[in-house]
């Protein structure tokens, strides 16, 4: 009986032959990522060693990555103190993959990991962040865990008692229409299978449209797989993965391309024709409340956000700039741009995208997650509506339970910025 990609990765990492969905294993972890919540991980980690007489040392400092991105620069003394404690721990444990608040190497964890080549195809990646699913874009099995679970990983080097998840195969054929993007694909899929449609399962992506998709786009679909409840999303590694790792992440060593077997056993198979997709919007307050953008056209909005771990990459900023070029952002909206990393920002500066968007009226904010989860900058007022390229629209998101967040692609966000109302970018020749 054949194996899915994740069954193969876990078999390798657990040193057990031929695992299948439902088996319980303890795979070795290749990458263990945390951000500011490392403050809690450290607390729990020290608790594990309490009264044992054993020195609390992490299993392998080279496999731990810590990135400050949720509240940068610190929005409060409390956060600053937590960040200080993490810095001290990082130094004491000899953790070198540490990305502090810096304008050259900083950024959002789900961009820092890929752009630095920290994740390789076939790796087991855990992160104290639900969007750790993103790294499936590089053919890794990547999933979110809580802080105490991470403390255990730091101590033992393995992910404890994992049930091998079943896999849903999603086959995407055809070619995207102009201004329709991977974001529209994943919103469509979530709307189709619901916010719990993939609970405790993996989504494995296949098909022409995936083969032709850049790593940047694959990061979008894997990132938001968790919004359908998936343990992880994964695109089996291919030539594009190798291109990305070599050209954009500077990886020089061997890369193995783990593929599923032809006779792998899937929980179910879903087929989608990309050429039939239109721009999608997830309406408040669940990510599966998805409608075509055209159905919401004309709805007034107060704030537009382009950025985050979902859609803050160079190609996202480029498409927005293309739509904005030579025009002015509506005076009825405020537009905020959060690039995904310092490196993305530097590239966008070089391409003069940042200057263009700024002159059109957008506010450029430093790379970070704060706005999306409502902890730092860009909070909404009572009764206000945001249209955002981020990944969640739950009540209370963007800092106000009396506001609404609609989710969309960068193209839809940019087209709507010009009009001040929700606008389908494929219509009206904007």
């Amino acid at each position, binding site marked *: 009986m054949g194996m899915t990609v994740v069954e193969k990765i876990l078999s390798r990492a657990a040193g057990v032959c031929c695992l299948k969905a439902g088996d319980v294993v303890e795979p070795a972890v290749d990458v263990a990522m945390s951000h500011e*919540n490392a403050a809690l991980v450290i607390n729990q980690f020290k608790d594990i060693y309490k009264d044992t007489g054993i020195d609390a040392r992490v299993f392998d400092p080279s496999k731990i990555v810590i990135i400050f991105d949720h509240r940068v620069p610190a929005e409060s003394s409390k956060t600053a103190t937590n960040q200080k404690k993490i810095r001290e721990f990082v130094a004491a444990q000899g953790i070198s993959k540490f990305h502090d608040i810096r304008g050259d190497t900083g950024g959002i964890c789900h961009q820092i990991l890929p752009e630095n080549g920290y994740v390789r195809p076939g790796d087991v990646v855990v*992160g104290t962040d639900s969007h*750790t699913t993103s790294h499936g874009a590089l053919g890794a099995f990547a999933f*979110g865990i809580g802080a*105490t679970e991470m403390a255990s990983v730091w101590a033992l080097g393995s992910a404890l*008692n994992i049930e091998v998840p079943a896999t849903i195969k999603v086959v995407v054929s055809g070619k995207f229409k102009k201004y329709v993007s991977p974001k529209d694909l994943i919103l469509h899929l979530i709307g189709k299978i619901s916010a719990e449609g993939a609970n405790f399962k993996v989504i494995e992506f296949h098909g022409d449209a995936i083969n032709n998709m850049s790593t940047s786009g694959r990061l979008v679909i894997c990132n938001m797989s968790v919004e359908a409840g998936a343990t992880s999303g994964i695109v089996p590694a291919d030539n594009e993965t190798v291109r990305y790792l070599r050209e954009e992440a500077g990886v020089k060593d061997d890369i193995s391309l783990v593929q599923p077997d032809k006779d792998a056993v899937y929980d179910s198979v879903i087929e989608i024709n990309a050429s039939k997709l239109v721009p999608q919007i997830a309406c408040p307050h669940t990510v599966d409340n998805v409608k075509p953008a055209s159905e919401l056209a004309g709805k007034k909005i107060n704030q537009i956000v382009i950025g985050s771990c979902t859609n803050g990459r160079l190609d996202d900023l480029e498409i927005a700039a293309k739509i904005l070029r030579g025009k002015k952002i509506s005076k009825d909206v405020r537009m905020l741009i959060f690039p995904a990393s310092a490196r993305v920002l530097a590239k966008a500066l070089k391409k003069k995208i940042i200057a263009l968007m700024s002159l059109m009226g957008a506010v450029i904010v430093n790379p970070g997650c704060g706005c999306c989860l*409502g902890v730092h900058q860009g909070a909404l007022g009572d009764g206000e509506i945001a249209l955002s390229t981020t990944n969640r629209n*739950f009540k209370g998101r963007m*800092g106000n339970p009396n506001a609404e967040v609609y989710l969309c692609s960068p193209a839809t966000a940019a087209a709507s910025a010009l009009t001040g109302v929700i606008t389908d970018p494929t219509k009206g020749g904007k």
Partner: protein
Amino acid sequence: MAKVVFKLGNDISTDIIYPGRFMATVLPTETPQYAFADYAEFNARLKKKEVAPGDAIVAGLNFGCGSSREQAASCLKGYDLAVVAKGFARIFLQNAINLGLNTIICPEIEANEGDELEITREDVINKTSGKTFKIQPLPKARQAIIDAGGLIPYTRKRVLEKHGR
């Protein structure tokens, strides 16, 4: 006996259980004050200790969806509440088991606020309505952690074994 103190629907996100704007607070001793912070009335009842340890929140499918923030489990554990839901999101369920929060998967549960529940190993018996609902076992992979009383004691045991103690 567990009294139903709060009834919720499907897809209750961790942003509802523990809003993102309080995430700078991480310690389990400090998180309970922000449990359901945007549900002012329930939050006030919790803080005024009008809810007894062992009382239950009843919810629909996908309880705890969204963020991996462990505060969403630790804030409820702080009041020793039980969560009886038709289903849980994966990361929340793991966090809850790791911290020893009592989570009960009960796919058919029917209960209203004020109802009295008797929770046995196999069933939830709604004493108010007289109906009995089957419990679905927690993931078998996590049984060793449940048996150890949570993930910290479990890992501590493993660390000691590793060091030959």
